């Protein structure tokens, strides 16, 4: 039976070998044919010479979660070839570098050797480029083999490369195509077919989406320190800012991006800039976040806005820097010694990466507190199809800031006074003229007037107000999304587990007759809607990608009455969770 637009391709190669362009051309060509597609790059934590895998999933139903089985393998890496072949399901297709001599290693798959070196040499006389264009040869082979439209592949290539590089690579692609035409039998197992596009769609990664969110939110000061997988966010922001955030008068940049000496400094400069009135942010990952702990506590207690993006990788410690997890949930929720609770946003889609980052700046200034955008490597560095982002209309919400005019009208101002009864005090910005509004910010005990205090009642007043303030954010944060089916059992998930959950729900319904409600949590502190959902269910499976059930722990803390009915579905082996994992774990717990 032919599988049309519903299978997966994997390219096993060596990092640093330049396969990225080839893989992108391949994926984009399919994408341009209107086929829902998603790409995942499994790359090592080193710079070159180690095995790396790129998986492209085609799914006419739009499933974008990781698919564990590979239907078509491209074997380019001698080191991993044996294992790569071994894990193919029976009936799979494989093309491999002829020199690997893999022809007979499995009888239950169809494998074709391709003379990559020969083809590359023929179309590219310059030795030093041969290694690179070899990759484009397999694209050509696949174009032919799968029925991808060559015109789309050509277009995709033209988007990525120009001039001589384009020509060379095109020749290589064509060589692959021609060779396949001449040497490979037709196959009817796997086909790519044009689909009618449902509206405009685009391919993007989460880091870029977050960068755009910051760009449109008017970020002005960025302190950062390189760390995988967050580096791309800042580098993307810098690139976009260079064309889209220039001062109309001077053409100078309107965002100051500074690589700091470490993450402590990054956090510190974010806090300093936020205090001074900038929209400030940093992006980091687990180890960096650990180092920011003290500054985050200061920002919380001194009530200084700042946006902290945590692109989660696999911990603990250095862990697997190039793999994904959801294991900083606890740290993002409560970083700091003493009593702390932070506003966290959990995007699950590219649109949310964009919009939540945008919102994070408003929330940080509105609630005068650090706000965490909790991303992960899977969202941030993989390729996702999305609808174009909606423009965030309206004014930037700069929160309660008293300027010179406002100060003039006010009799007695106190930095930490709860004037409006909403727990949110008014702040002033350094440099405001008029001789009023100056105060000294401190992380030590202070009263409503921002004056140093060791008085228990004054200390408590501030701490309780901050608690109220943060908890009150729940009602304006992105509300959970409820996919109802009217049953008494449900799934709760967040972030990058979403695609796998969506697929799992279909499998459960279609293959197991199990219908489950689904609630996707999008922010901390938790909305009351979550409580309502939990109360209405007999059992709720909390799906997350960490060992300890970190989100489940937060839910148990804030909804203790519902705690007995929570069950964890956990996946934490460093790969993105799959639908089948969820299905299996749920079925095994359904008695």
């Amino acid at each position: 039976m032919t599988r049309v637009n519903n299978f997966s391709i994997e390219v096993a190669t060596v990092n640093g070998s330049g396969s990225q362009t080839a893989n992108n051309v391949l994926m984009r060509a399919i994408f341009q044919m209107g086929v829902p597609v998603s790409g995942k790059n499994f790359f090592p934590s080193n710079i070159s010479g180690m095995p790396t895998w790129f998986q492209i999933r085609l799914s006419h139903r739009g499933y974008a979660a990781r698919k564990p089985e590979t239907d078509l393998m491209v074997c380019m890496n001698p080191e991993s070839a044996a294992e790569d072949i071994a894990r193919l399901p029976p009936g799979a297709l494989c093309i491999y570098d002829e020199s690997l001599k893999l022809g007979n290693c499995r009888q239950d798959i169809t494998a074709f050797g391709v003379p990559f070196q020969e083809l590359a040499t023929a179309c590219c006389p310059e030795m030093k480029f041969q290694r690179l264009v070899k990759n484009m040869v397999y694209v050509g082979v696949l174009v032919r083999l799968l029925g991808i439209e060559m015109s789309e592949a050509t277009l995709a290539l033209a988007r990525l490369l120009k001039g001589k590089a384009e020509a060379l690579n095109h020749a290589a692609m064509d060589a692959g195509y021609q060779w396949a035409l001449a040497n490979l039998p037709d196959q009817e197992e796997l086909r790519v077919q044009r689909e009618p596009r449902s509206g405009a769609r685009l391919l993007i990664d989460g880091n870029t989406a977050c960068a755009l969110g910051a760009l449109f939110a008017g970020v002005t000061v960025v302190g950062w320190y390189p760390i995988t997988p967050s580096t791309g966010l800042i580098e993307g922001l810098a690139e976009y800012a260079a064309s889209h955030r220039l001062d109309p008068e001077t053409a100078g940049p309107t965002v100051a991006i500074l690589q700091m000496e470490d993450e402590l400094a990054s956090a510190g400069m974010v806090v300093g800039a936020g205090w001074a009135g900038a929209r400030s942010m940093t992006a980091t990952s687990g180890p960096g976040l650990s180092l920011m702990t003290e500054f985050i506590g200061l920002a919380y207690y001194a009530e200084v806005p700042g946006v902290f993006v945590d692109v989660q990788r696999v911990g603990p410690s250095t862990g697997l820097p190039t793999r994904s997890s959801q294991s900083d949930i606890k740290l993002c929720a409560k970083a700091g010694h003493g009593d702390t609770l932070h506003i966290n946003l959990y995007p699950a889609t590219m649109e949310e990466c964009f919009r939540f980052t945008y919102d994070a700046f408003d929330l940080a200034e509105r609630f005068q507190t650090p706000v965490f955008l909790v991303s992960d490597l899977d969202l941030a560095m993989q390729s996702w199809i999305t609808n174009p982002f909606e423009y965030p209309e309206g004014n930037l919400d700069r929160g309660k800031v008293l300027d010179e005019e406002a100060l003039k009208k006010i009799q007695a101002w106190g930095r930490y006074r709860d004037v409006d009864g909403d727990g949110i005090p008014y702040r002033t910005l350094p440099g405001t003229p008029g001789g009023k509004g100056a105060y000294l910010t401190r992380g030590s005990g202070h009263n409503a007037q921002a004056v140093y205090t060791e008085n228990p009642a004054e200390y408590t007043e501030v701490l309780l107000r901050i608690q109220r303030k943060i908890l009150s954010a729940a009602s304006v944060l992105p509300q959970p999304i409820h996919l109802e089916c009217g049953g008494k059992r449900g799934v709760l998930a967040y972030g990058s587990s979403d695609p796998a959950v969506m697929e799992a729900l279909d499998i459960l319904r279609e293959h197991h007759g199990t219908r489950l409600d689904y609630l996707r949590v999008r922010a901390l502190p938790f909305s009351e809607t979550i409580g309502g959902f939990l109360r209405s269910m007999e059992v709720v499976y909390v799906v997350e990608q960490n060992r300890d059930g970190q989100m489940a722990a937060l839910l148990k803390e804030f909804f203790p009455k519902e705690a007995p009915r929570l069950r964890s579905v956990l996946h934490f082996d460093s790969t993105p969770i799959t639908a089948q994992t969820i299905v299996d774990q749920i079925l095994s717990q359904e008695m």
Partner: protein
Amino acid sequence: MSTSPTTNKLGLSLQDYTGGKSTLCVGCGHEGITLQIIHAAFELGLEPHQVAKLSGIGCSSKTPAYFLRSAWGFNSIHGRAAAVCTGVALANRSMKNLLVSGDGDSMSIGLNHFTHLIRRNVPVVYIIEDNGVYALTKGQFSATADQGSALRWGQVNELPPVDPCTLAMELGCGFVARSFSGNPKQLKTLIKAAFAHPGTAVLDVISPCVTWNNHETSTRSYQSAKQREIPLQELGFIPPFHTEPVEIPAGESREVTFPDGSRITFRTLHEDYDPSNRIEAWRIVHESREKGELLTGLLYCHPDKPTLHDFVKTTQTPLTALPQSTLKPGPEVLLRIMEELA
């Protein structure tokens, strides 16, 4: 000071530059520095609201509460005021940054930030109130404690000190000075000059801690500092506006001009000392310290180096003053970007 007018060019009085009631010990060296900050700011006619006071944690770091009450201040966390300052500088380049730190705050926990602040030449007057101990935690040695100096209870410091001044020179800092809280005139002049410096100005001020480190066997006591102090120059400072009497040292005098037009004038008291020659200055300060001397004055000055804002190309308009129309690109920009990605 007797000749000073009672109001400055802004019409403000000295009182307007004072702060809250101090909680430091009576006689603390830090108080002397606070006083000279007040005087310098008053005489310079700084707009208090345009000064950002930054500090870490320690007795020294508390002092921003005790001067310039109409300035904003941020008493942050231990050792990291430099990072906070960098953020403030970028956010609002119109602020005058004044960072007050301790030797513990800057030379151990905060040394990395100190180093990179200097490297980026962040505009700030960086005062280290240097008492050789962690005073607020009750008198442990800090990294600037001299070898052989003893604590009251006998313990002798055997580790070599980190010298904030030679370190700053090594790092290429464009304004390096040492002073002594017991030398108010020099200190005030240096603070004024530091405010004129466009980049990072490091002032290491020997500031005896009367509670933990002012005894006979300490080299950081008032007495020891007084005995060992060798002022390098007689200093004067001429602000760009010339509205107040200028103290110009008598005798042959040299000067350095700052980009804002103000000048520091000095009559050299130490043969051959040239504060514009970094390498020689470094050598003399090192050699002199090895002899047990305490050189004070302007150690090194080279005001014409690119600053943070040159590196980052910060807009002239403070980033905090940019309107939303500049900060938030329009829908057409998003549309274009979306199309590029389609």
